[in-house]
């Protein structure tokens, strides 16, 4: 049976997903051409405010996208072997260090999609001690300049931050933190202007920020649609690509239009009553890292238990973490209020656990799958606080600690057994309780 399960692949139904994937590939090859023609290319960590580079029309590649692509192509094990040969540890920071390993390939064109273009500079935020080191080394490997952006820690928090973030973002932060982040943004702009010879145009930036708000508005509409339709119309894997790729391209008209198309396509499916599966019974949400190298793992459970992942949390995140109105008031400050909260929203309680419970309740989620990355300090997420908060709210959590980039460490049979046991002993009994409560 295990062999049969290995044959499953995540099935994509959305035209949007196919379009986004094709766009991403075309974008990457176009980017490589631009770099070959002499443009300077940046390599960014995902939490860097890439809006600045986009406004300046500077090509860039995002670390986590590249790592995910490498993981999907099952290249990471080779990368980490290469690093070990050079005296680096091949067993730490696998989520972030893939590109460093790729830079050590004897023939770099053997990396996915022919390898990265020539990298002229790297930018990361200092949200993790190792990340600074990795980007420092990566820069040396590519002969690139390294621009680090500092990270400040909030002393103030609001448990209902997600109700404030669109319009009252100034109140969500300590003003001094926003001041510090704006100063950091200005430093980045100066660095990029010096490095590339391109000017940062504030008017273009404002236009772009408003395009992003439009994009996130369409994602919010899609979120409301999925929350209220009563069934799951497409798989999480399908939805994830349709959301994340436009998010990498946020600030472009293509990304805004793609978000609109996603909404319209979902609406059409919902209006027609098209379900992802006919026997939907259990609705799960995933937290923590994604299972990149094995997106098809859940299809066995989909068929046996009617298990679906509505994937609404990606839309929630798109709306909560990105939409910032009143841009014109102070555009760089609005951007700071977006990227400055990423670390907190994703990785820190009470932001992530409060939002997780609210999101699961809204989405009528029966259980949560939580992947805690085994060799990453950044991704610890306060997972126990999230798990406790979800369990207290009556939502069972399947928590597993693993390296989501390392296919070799994955034991399909063991994981299948454990997950099946979780469904049988935790999810189904709770589901029956919920159904009984509702029928009263």
């Amino acid at each position: 049976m295990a062999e049969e399960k290995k044959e499953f692949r995540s099935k994509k139904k959305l035209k949007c997903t196919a379009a986004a994937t094709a766009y991403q590939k075309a974008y990457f090859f176009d980017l490589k051409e631009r770099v070959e023609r002499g443009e300077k290319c940046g390599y960014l960590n995902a939490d860097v405010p890439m809006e600045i580079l986009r406004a300046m029309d500077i090509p860039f590649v995002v670390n986590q996208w590249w790592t995910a692509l490498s993981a999907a192509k099952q290249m990471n094990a080779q990368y980490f072997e290469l690093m070990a040969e050079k005296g680096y540890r091949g067993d730490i920071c696998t989520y972030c260090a893939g590109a460093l390993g790729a830079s050590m390939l004897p023939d770099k064109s053997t990396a996915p999609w022919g390898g990265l273009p020539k990298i002229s500079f790297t930018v990361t935020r200092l949200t993790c001690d190792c990340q600074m080191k990795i980007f420092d080394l990566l820069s040396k490997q590519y002969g690139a300049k390294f621009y680090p952006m500092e990270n400040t820690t909030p002393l103030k928090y609001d448990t209902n931050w997600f109700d404030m973030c669109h319009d009252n973002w100034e109140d969500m932060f300590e003003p001094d933190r926003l001041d510090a982040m704006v100063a950091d943004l200005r430093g980045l702009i100066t660095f990029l202007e010096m490095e590339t010879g391109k000017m940062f145009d504030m008017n273009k930036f404002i236009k772009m920020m408003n395009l992003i708000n439009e994009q996130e508005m369409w994602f919010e509409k899609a979120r409301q649609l999925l929350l209220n339709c009563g069934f799951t119309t497409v798989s999480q894997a399908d939805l994830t690509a349709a959301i994340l790729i436009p998010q990498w391209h946020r600030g472009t008209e293509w990304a805004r239009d793609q978000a609109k198309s996603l909404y319209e396509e979902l609406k059409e499916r919902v209006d027609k009553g098209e379900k992802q599966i006919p026997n939907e019974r259990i609705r799960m949400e995933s937290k923590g890292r994604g299972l990149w190298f094995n997106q098809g793992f859940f299809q066995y459970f989909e068929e046996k238990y009617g298990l679906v992942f509505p994937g609404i949390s990606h839309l929630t995140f798109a709306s909560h973490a990105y939409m910032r109105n009143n841009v014109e008031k102070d555009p760089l400050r609005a951007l700071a209020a977006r990227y400055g909260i990423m670390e907190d929203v994703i990785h820190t309680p009470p932001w992530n656990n409060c939002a997780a419970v609210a999101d699961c309740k809204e989405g009528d989620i029966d259980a949560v799958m939580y992947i805690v990355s085994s060799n990453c300090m950044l991704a610890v997420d306060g997972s126990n606080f999230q798990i406790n908060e979800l369990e207290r709210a009556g939502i069972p959590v399947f928590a597993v600690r693993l390296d989501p980039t390392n296919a070799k460490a994955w034991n399909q049979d063991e994981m299948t057994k454990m997950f099946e046991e979780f469904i049988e002993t935790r999810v189904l009994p709770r589901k029956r309780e919920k159904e009984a409560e509702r029928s009263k």
Partner: protein
Amino acid sequence: MSFRECALNNSSFIALKQAYDDREKVAREWKAAGKTVIGTMGNDVPDEVLIAAGMLPVRIYGSGVTSTENAAKFLELNFDQIVRCQFEKLVNGEYAELFDKVVISSSTDVLIRIYSYIREIHRTEPDVKVPKEYFVDILFTPYLQHQLRNEFVVDKFIKTVGEWAGHEISDEDLRRASAICNEDRQAMREFSALRYGEQPRVMGTEALVVIGSSLFMEKDKHAALVRELLKDAVNWPVVDAPRIYMTGSVQENLALYGLIEELGGNVITEDHDWGDRHFDTDVDLNAIPVKAIAARYMCRMVSPKKSFIDDHVAATVAHTKKTGAQGLLLYSIVEDETFAWDYPNQREALADIGVKTTAIGRQGYPLKATDELKAELKGFIDQLKEVK
């Protein structure tokens, strides 16, 4: 492990060792006298500010903790065992009465998470008795904008501590406290100078006691004891053993250095927080206090975890030359492996000046003196003997 007779016969060393061994003794005395005791986590909480307010800063440590079952309810396995042990003492109620507050600095990304976790425990777990937390968010990237930010952070800390004390902390208070800390640092620097060079007179374990005890007692009393000890220590017998520079996980007990000494080596310097970094760089008493304090914590000997690789490598080479270390030992415990990113470059740079290196990672905590570990250490020490 056992200390040399020269150390054991010195009453100042014995007094320092008592403070090192019974780490809460002074804190208990302060509490009994109705005074304020602040637990600190991280090496960048400005003691000067707390001392200026008439408070006793005491470092939170993990040594001696045998079970981390309470910490395990909150911390993921990604947290290293030293921090897990420290956190255990915070959440098992041990510190609830002893410390009035706990102040955490941004010295590592792990501590940033510890701060947010403690804050969340206060919000969601009212039955868990933890001292109220405060966070000192020092930035380490050496740019002006971050220096200005750090001055803001230190100023805010001064005002907050003033509120705790019930009175404003004046510049004069800060200068007086800074002078006390400077004097203690100077005394430790002079003592540690006896570790360096071709004829060191101090063993690594002895140095750990002298340095570590400063984290648990009044700085002026500590400085006086170290000054007294210095008079004797300058005449201690020369230690004839390979001279080792240790980098890696913090050594808040004597186990590793003791094992190295048993195997014939001697740690003469280190860049972890319970060693030479602790007393490097003074607060400039002629500058505006808030600026001087911020600068001291931002600009001292680089932190292996917070520095750019070139900076750490350059500092390692310079410090190796200054101290006369013959070999660099990287020793790190499981999940505390940031150092591993710097090591290949350190190895290369030190090889250029004829200094040997070795890296021992993935170690457990507390230290387990396995045959494998002993063999690795002994092999390295023997290599250094050959160099001699």
